[in-house]
């Protein structure tokens, strides 16, 4: 797996005194998870997929597979001779924040799944109350946070929780600012390729903290079929309706996205918290940035809006931080 080699995962784990973050609680707020996947079985500490006030909105299945992919990168079983290795064996706490009904998206002219705002706020509130250590958010959007979203992020960060979010994949559209990555205090992650250059889709911006591998990332997918969404066809009433499903693979697949880069940094944050004295999100960011590898695209700069402070290096994080 090129991504693990690039961040020097094996060397980091071989460091004398390396502490597996088995008690560090990492929250993944995403499309759900397939807990019975052979590479995730026994790895999920908790899975919340329903809101008590909207019990029919969301079932247990991870239809899209995005959350199962993200969670696999963070914490798939290590060394089981099956599929992939996760970065660490932290506690995985999963919240499904998408409902199961796709909505028409005028921009893409297709039916896609959007974050359910109530399930999202509810998950953030749970993270506040349960004082999770790290939150992975491989989601985004251009709208400024409303009062409630901002309030919950402020509370999470004040609690000392490390929040990691994807920069976004709209580079070809001028890298519009995406939230929650651009919320102050959130660690925003861009995506790099095998040669350490920026991925063609990865947003640039002055709020980027660092980068991590985000192209052709192999990880877990649900063993049951599912889809990203549906093409739109015009119904008899002239309105768009769901057409053919855009199917995804099952079991495993290589995906691109700042979504795929983000869990590398979330897992690395868990490893840092396990191997050093407890620290707040700002200190975690400082250590991630100080130990990142400067990449050729940065020139001589300490910071670059394509890469932040550079590409994640887990070995240096464990041995130098």
């Amino acid at each position, binding site marked *: 797996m090129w991504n693990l080699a690039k961040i020097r995962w094996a060397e980091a784990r071989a460091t004398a005194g390396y502490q597996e973050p088995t008690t560090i609680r990492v929250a993944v707020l995403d499309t759900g998870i397939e807990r019975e996947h052979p590479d995730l079985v026994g790895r999920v500490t908790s899975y919340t997929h329903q809101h008590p006030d909207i019990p029919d909105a969301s079932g247990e299945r991870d239809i899209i597979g995005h959350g199962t992919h993200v969670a696999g990168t963070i914490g798939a079983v290590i060394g089981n001779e099956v599929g992939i290795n996760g970065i660490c064996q932290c506690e995985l706490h999963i919240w499904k924040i998408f409902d199961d009904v796709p909505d028409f998206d005028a921009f893409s002219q297709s039916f896609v799944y959007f*974050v359910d*705002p109530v399930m*999202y706020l509810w998950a953030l509130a749970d993270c506040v109350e349960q004082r999770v250590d790290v939150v992975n958010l*491989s*989601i985004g959007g251009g709208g*400024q946070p409303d009062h409630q979203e901002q309030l*919950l992020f402020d509370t999470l960060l004040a609690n000392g929780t490390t929040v990691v979010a994807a920069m976004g994949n709209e580079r070809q559209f001028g890298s519009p600012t995406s939230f929650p990555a651009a919320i102050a205090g959130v660690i925003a992650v861009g995506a790099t390729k095998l040669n350490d250059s920026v991925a063609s889709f990865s947003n640039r911006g002055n709020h980027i903290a660092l980068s991590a591998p985000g192209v052709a990332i192999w990880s877990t997918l649900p063993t049951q079929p599912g889809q990203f969404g549906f093409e739109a066809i015009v119904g008899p009433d002239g309105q768009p309706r769901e057409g053919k499903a855009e199917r995804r693979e099952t079991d495993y697949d290589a995906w691109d996205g700042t979504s795929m880069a*983000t869990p590398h940094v979330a897992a690395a944050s868990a490893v840092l918290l396990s191997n050093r004295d407890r620290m707040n999100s700002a200190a975690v960011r400082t250590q991630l940035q100080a130990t990142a590898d400067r990449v050729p695209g940065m020139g001589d700069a300490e910071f670059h809006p394509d890469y932040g402070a550079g590409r994640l290096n887990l070995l240096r994080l464990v041995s130098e931080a």
Partner: protein
Amino acid sequence: MQTITITFRAEVPKPRREAVLEAMARTSGVLKASFLKAESDHPEIARTAYLSLATQADVEAVLTQLRQLPEIEAASLPAQRRLM
């Protein structure tokens, strides 16, 4: 369905918050008015609530009504979030 999120002012007591939500639930187009987590003892979470509105509801009218209430600190349409 559409959603409006609400933050009550910190000094508003819980019974008054409940009364506001009960009144809003009777407003045209409002399907549900609820605290985010009714049993939370966290002060910031306890003052967060939401309304679920029918697709054809007049959202702007409901927002205007909410923002005129002295108990409400903020009422807004949540920003759309999607996969990256």
